[in-house]
C-alpha cells in the first residue's frame, strides 16, 4: 500500500472532522456509499444567506484514500458558492491526492457526497432540485 504523502497527511491529520446539525435549515447533508462496499461518506455544508459555503464537516468510514478524499473536499468547498462547489470533479480530487487507479472510486464517492449535500440544502430551500437518491435517511 503505497499511499502518496498527501493521502497520508490527510489521513493522519484529517481536516474538518465532525458533524453539523442536519435539521438546521442552513445545513445540507450528503451521505453516500454503503458499509458492505467498505466506504460510507457523510459530508455536511453550512451555507450563508449569500449562497456561499462557509463551513464544511465530514465523517468517513473507509480506507485511507476515502478519508483523504473527503477531508480534501471539505477544504475545497469552503468559500465556494453552491454552483462553484458543484463543479468539483472527481478527477481533480484524484489528481491532487495522486490516487492510484484502484482508489479512483474514493474520489468519485467524494464528488457524489458534495452533490448530495448540495441537493439536500436546495431541497430544504425549495429550489426545485430533486432529493438525491444518495442522500440516505434511516428507514
Amino acid at each position, binding site marked *: *500500500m503505497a*499511499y502518496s504523502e498527501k493521502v497520508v497527511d490527510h*489521513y493522519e491529520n*484529517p481536516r474538518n*472532522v465532525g*458533524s453539523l446539525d442536519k435539521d438546521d435549515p442552513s445545513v445540507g447533508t450528503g*451521505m*453516500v*456509499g*454503503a*458499509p*458492505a*462496499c*467498505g*466506504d*460510507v*461518506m*457523510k459530508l455536511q455544508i453550512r451555507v450563508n444567506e449569500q449562497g456561499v459555503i462557509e463551513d464544511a464537516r465530514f*465523517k*468517513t*468510514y*473507509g*480506507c*485511507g484514500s*476515502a*478519508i483523504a478524499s473527503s477531508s480534501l473536499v471539505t477544504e475545497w468547498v469552503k468559500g465556494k458558492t453552491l454552483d462553484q462547489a458543484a463543479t468539483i470533479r472527481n478527477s481533480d480530487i484524484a489528481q491532487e491526492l495522486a490516487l492510484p*487507479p*484502484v482508489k479512483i*472510486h474514493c474520489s*468519485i*464517492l467524494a464528488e457524489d457526497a458534495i452533490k448530495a449535500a448540495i441537493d439536500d440544502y436546495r431541497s430544504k430551500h425549495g429550489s426545485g432540485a430533486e432529493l438525491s*437518491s*444518495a442522500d*440516505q*435517511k*434511516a*428507514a
Partner: protein
Amino acid sequence: MRPPIYLDYSATTPVDPRVVDKMVPFLYDHFGNPASRSHQFGWEAEDAVEMARQEVASLVGCEAKEIVWTSGATESINLALKGAAYFHQERGRHLITVKTEHKATLDTMRELERHGFEVTYLDVREDGLIDFEALKAALRPDTILVSIMYVNNEIGVIQDVPAIGEMLRERGILFHVDSAQATGKIDINLADLKVDLMSFSAHKTYGPKGVGALFIRRKPRVRIEAQIHGGGHERGFRSGTLPTHQIVGMGEAFRLARVEMATENARIRRLRDRLLAGVQAMEEIYINGSLEQRVPHNLNASFNYVEGESLIMAVKGIAVSSGSACTSASLEPSYVLRALGRSDELAHSSIRFSVGRFTTDADVDYAVDLIQTKVGKLREMSPLWEMYKEGIDINSVQWAAH
C-alpha cells in the same frame, strides 16, 4: 522510527538464538552429506539428523522412525493427502476436510478434485469448532481420509483431535492432522492419539524456515505414495539430500519446546489475557473463535464500525495480521471468519494478534494503547459509529450499492 512491535508469531517466529548456535557448525565444519556412508563427514551429519529426528519424535510422542523430513508443513500436507489418496484410491475416492483449513490443505484438495476425487468441505460452528455429528454424517462408505488442522492459524481454536481420531479409527478411515500451529502450544501424544498422518513445521516453533516433517504411523502401518522421487532418501517417502543444518535447527527448536512449553505457555497466556482485557475495554468488539478451546498465543478480534484497510494503516506501529487482504483492488475478507458467519464488514475489520517467546509486558501495553487510541480516532471519524451511538440500526438503512 522504531521498528513495529512484533505480534505476528502465528505467521512465523524468530529463530531462537540457541537454535541458531546449534545450526551454524553444520554450515561450516560439519557440512557433510548425511547420505555419504563412506567417511566421517557423512557419519557426523547422519548422527545429527538422527538426533534431531528423535527430538521431533519426543515432542509429539512417536517413534523416530515414523518421522520423515520435508521442506515444511505445506510439503508435508501435500505428501500426506496426495500420497494417501493415490495409494488408497481403489478403496474409495472420497475425502473430507473443513472450510477453515489452511490453503495448503484446501488447495491440495482442489488439486485432488481435478484428479477425480470427491471432497466434502465441512462447515464449522460459530465458535470455529467442528460439529462432531456433522462430520459423522458426512462419512461415506467410500471415504478414505479426513484432514483436519489441530490449531487454526487465524483464530487459534483447538479441534477435538482425540475424539475425532477414535471415531475414524473405528471406521478404518485415515486421519491426517495439520499440526503446524500446534507444536509447543498444546501437548501432542501420538502414542495415544488415533492419528495416522501428522504435518509439522519448524518455523512456527522458533526453528528455521524451509524444514518440516511428516509423521507416518507404523503401527498400524500407514501406506502412502511418494510424491518426490530421486535417491530414495527417507525410506523412499521423500527423496532429496537432507538439509542437515535446517534439520538440526528443527530438532533443537522442538527440544526447547518440549522442555519449556509448560512455563512458557503460562507466561504467554498471561500476556494474551492482558491484551484481551485491553481490547475488550472498548465497545463493539467481537472476539472471533472460541476463547476456551484456544491456544494461549492467539487473539483475533473484530472492531465494529471501523473499516479494515484504515485500521491496518492506523496500527502500523505493531506487526499484526489483518482479516482483509487489501493490497489489491478486490477486498477479500478472511474466508475463515466468513465461515464463522461473520459479516464482510466484521471480517474486514479484524486483527489477529499472536504473542510469543519474546513478547514482553511493555509490548502488550504499547499495543493496547495504540489500538485504543487509533480505533477511538477512526470511530470518531466514522459516520456508522455516529449512527450506532444515535441508536440507528445500520442494517435497517437502505444503502445505495456502488
